[in-house]
């Protein structure tokens, strides 16, 4: 069974708001898959339906080859879920928090698995510390450890790195790589497209629909555009000129401009001409691959 998650024409409305407008998706075993999109795109609603927390209005949903509705208990024991606002007990220690989650899953011989998870998240030296006294990054790792105590086959992460500093974030990604190594399938939501680049496949969501679904590399190729990076001065003036000159998508990064173009010499020449006529001094140009963010903004604008 290669498809560990199968979603067919899934829909969910909240009174008059269509949160998820019929999405279909298959996720393979061992993937690190990301649902990406702005607030209100339907990411969290989707992940909540997948974890059985809310019921879809229509559509088919199966995990590990079984229909979610009819196999709730079986599925509950096979999945882990780390929500945006994960709940730890501040007045319990790290050890006690994990013990609590083990008991919820009716697991009583948890101590070996707990040791393993503490090693894995490098929390062993702090196991007797109260959760309230942990840093943000450590709390997040503890919450992750709690969600893994019952050895789930699929792990759902809802915006796991929001508000976490870069060092902890890098650490967290290392841990996720380790989980993939153990054969766990990960499905996460994130508003950060640079994080989505780390995933094997990505679904870009907007307004309740999937607008692109592929590997990050293929999604970037699909729009057939490149980014012309121009180091120039005064860069702000250059930015304004491009912005006002028509429908080119442009971003300003300090003294650099990134302009999305079709990679043809005539397009580059045209931009250079505009700059020359406006006395913009150019000190370097190169063609770079668009980022997922470039592609995403492009798709949404079109």
């Amino acid at each position, binding site marked *: 069974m290669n498809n560990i998650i199968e979603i067919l024409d899934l829909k969910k409305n909240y009174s008059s708001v269509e949160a998820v407008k019929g999405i279909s998706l298959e996720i393979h075993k061992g993937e690190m898959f990301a649902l990406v999109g702005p607030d209100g795109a339907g990411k969290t609603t989707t992940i909540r339906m997948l974890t059985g927390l809310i019921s879809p209005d229509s559509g088919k949903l199966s995990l590990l080859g079984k229909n979610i509705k009819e196999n709730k208990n079986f599925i509950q024991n096979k999945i882990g879920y780390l929500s945006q606002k994960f709940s730890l007990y501040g007045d319990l220690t790290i050890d006690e928090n994990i013990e609590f989650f083990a008991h919820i899953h009716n697991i009583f011989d948890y101590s070996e698995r707990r040791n393993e998870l503490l090693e894995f998240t490098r929390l062993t030296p702090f196991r007797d510390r109260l959760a309230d006294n942990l840093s943000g990054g450590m709390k997040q790792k503890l919450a992750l450890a709690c969600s893994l105590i019952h050895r789930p086959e699929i792990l759902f992460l809802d915006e796991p790195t929001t508000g976490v*500093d*870069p060092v902890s974030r890098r650490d967290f990604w290392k841990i996720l790589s380790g989980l993939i190594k153990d054969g766990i399938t990960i499905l996460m939501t994130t508003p950060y497209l640079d994080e989505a680049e780390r995933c094997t496949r990505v679904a870009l969501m907007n307004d309740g629909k999937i607008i692109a679904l592929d590997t990050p590399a293929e999604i970037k190729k699909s729009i057939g555009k490149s980014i012309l990076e121009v180091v120039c001065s005064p860069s702000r003036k250059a930015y304004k000129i491009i912005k006002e000159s028509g429908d080119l998508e442009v971003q300003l990064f*300090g003294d650099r401009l990134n302009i999305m173009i079709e990679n043809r010499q005539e397009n580059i020449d045209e931009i250079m001409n505009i700059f020359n006529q406006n006395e913009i001094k150019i000190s370097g140009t190169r063609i770079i691959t668009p980022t997922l*963010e470039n592609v995403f903004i492009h798709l949404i604008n079109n």
Partner: protein
Amino acid sequence: MHSITVNNLTKKFGSFVSVDNISFNVKEGEIFGFLGANGAGKSTTIRMLCGILEPTSGDALVGGFSINSEPDKVKSSIGYMSQRFSLYNDLTVQENIDFFGGVYGLSGSNFRERKNWVLEIANLKGKENLLTGLLPGGIKQRLALGTAVIHNPKIVFLDEPTSGVDPISRRSFWDLINQLSEEGTTVFVTTHYLEEAEFCNNIILINAGKLVAEGTSEELKTNYINHKIIDIECDRTVEAMEILEKETFVLDTSIFGNNLHISVLDDVSAKKSVLALLEGKHSFRIRKIDTIVPTLEDVFIHLIEKG
């Protein structure tokens, strides 16, 4: 022309040195990125620069005023916006703007003009009576920035302003920051998202209270990191990572989408070794192997692990 000049600024809490003798300059009208992990001393520094926390030693001139001898003048020449937007959720848009205008002592036609400006940049014209708590995150963020600069300060401090904001809103927020900077406002910004630091004209990085790097993003990427990052596109990425992890020339590994990233000191010899090992010995199919430019995040992690 410098808008902020920091000289040997130090702050101790008992025996704990939170900010350790840092010096730097911020040019007028630039977007200046102030980076550091949690606990590095960022917030302490910002609080001193805003004139609300007295340094243990050293001084800074903010908008021409000394934080030691003229903290009140410092306060009136700056704006401040934090990640927990300082807006009142149970007040309407109008009431929030009135409140901040009042705090900064605005009145008459100047106030009306600025109020209009805030409504305009937040796209809230005609929606003055909405409850602030019900606004979408991106709009709230623009309103928070608007109220933070309603008194037209020369300098604005933004403390993790985009935490938890979606990509579309973030991009339009940065357009707004660029607009402020173009109008001559100096923007001093902290962020955990290093791809955002790319928007800054200049960046400094602090770690354990000390300044560890400064320059443009290009300078940081070339001057502060001596190891190279190699991007490998091959089959069975996880297995490849397990094999490479054991090699001494590999300093670090990470899975990056369908590819593998490794850090090494000598990229030329490392590529040869990787090919020999993966293709030669273990018959992987390597489709691509390239040295890539490190990201700011790579530089940041490198400097912090080194320190």
